[in-house]
């Protein structure tokens, strides 16, 4: 039993935010976060994306049914529905493309460990491994195969520098506090710890912000 259930029992006037509204809020937050974070974030594990794709599909079917109906009142409703559908499609596309660009840029990195691979959805995983395989074959046939075997690796770490590019987790980000929280941020001269209020906007390193964002105490903006 979660907090909502308890509240509903003790307080009949408590009304839960409808699932559709909550999904829109979650999708929006996921989009902003993915557009702002320097690294790929985890694919939502609660079926958010599957639910949204399903309702988008159903809405498209509904629009097709309604298009036959020429009643002017329904007609305006149709405009509203289509406008909103386009807004949802934009959110979904932009979210997926922001993820794709991170996967493209650091494909070998995100494929390198189980923990990192777990952040990708099944389709993203298939995309990343096939794309990487194609690239590797292309490199081999165009130039890598003429190198001595010892120089053909794409993941060499000798010479003190790794060939596999990784995102800079120390990059600065903007976050907004969702609860009053104590925030720790490492700096060059000092490490700061301060109490911030709900709604405050703070600049700090992503590595310091990450746990706040993942625990829902803050969001990226």
């Amino acid at each position: 039993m979660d907090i909502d259930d308890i509240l509903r029992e003790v307080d009949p006037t408590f009304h839960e935010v409808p699932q559709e509204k909550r999904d829109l809020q979650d999708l929006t937050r996921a989009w902003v976060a993915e557009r702002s974070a320097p690294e790929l974030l985890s694919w939502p594990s609660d079926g958010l994306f599957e639910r949204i794709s399903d309702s988008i599909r159903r809405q498209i079917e509904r629009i097709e049914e309604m298009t036959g109906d020429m009643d002017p009142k329904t007609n305006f409703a149709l405009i509203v529905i289509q406008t909103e559908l386009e807004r949802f499609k934009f959110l979904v596309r932009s979210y997926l493309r922001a993820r794709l660009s991170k996967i493209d840029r650091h494909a070998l990195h995100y494929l390198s460990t189980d923990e990192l691979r777990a952040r990708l959805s099944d389709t993203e995983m298939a995309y990343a491994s096939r794309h990487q395989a194609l690239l590797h074959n292309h490199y081999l046939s165009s130039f890598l195969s003429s190198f001595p075997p010892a120089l053909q690796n794409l993941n060499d770490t000798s010479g003190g520098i790794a060939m596999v590019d990784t995102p800079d987790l120390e990059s600065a980000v903007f976050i907004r506090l969702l609860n009053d929280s104590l925030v720790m941020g490492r700096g060059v001269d000092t490490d700061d710890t301060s109490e911030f209020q709900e709604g405050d906007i703070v600049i700090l390193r992503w590595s310091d912000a990450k746990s706040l964002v993942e625990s829902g105490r803050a969001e990226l903006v």
Partner: protein
Amino acid sequence: MSYYDIDSILTDAEKIPCTFQLDVPELGYLDNSPGQTLKAGARVALPLWLAELLAITSTGSSDDQNKSYVAFDLPHALRNDVVQALKAEPLAVPLRDQSAHFYSLATHMMDLSEEPELSATLRKTFVRRAAEIALHARKLGGGTGKGDEGGSNLGVGGAGEEFLRGLDEWERRLFRKAHDGTRAGKEWMEKIKKN
């Protein structure tokens, strides 16, 4: 630092003054005497990647274990009079004339040897010059101003142009970001009135 980063590769090619710590046979061509032995104490400018390698690699000779091949000094771009000039007036020094990768080079050097004072001075310099960069970017990007403070009075002319010419690569990138942000803001403003 990343493997495929062009700026970091170019920074690695910057020349660093090095002093050889021991005689190296056949290496005299580095010091304009081909075929000769390069004597210990010879001062040669080596690219950063090579200098770094030789400075941190121990020669492994039995007599003095910890001796490295070369000792290096701070590059010309970071010499004392440049740093003093930056301390006095950060805006007056055209960094690009010292090196197009001035900050990148400095960061790399500070990784190799501790330079706390240099680090503090460069951070102050960077922040002070960044504020000036933002000012110019805002004017050139059209700004969100009332329109009467357009390009002409601060503009690209004169001192402004000279300052912008002297930006190093980090600063140029900063300038572009500030400029793009201002311009995108202005474009949004204009678009909202149209539709």
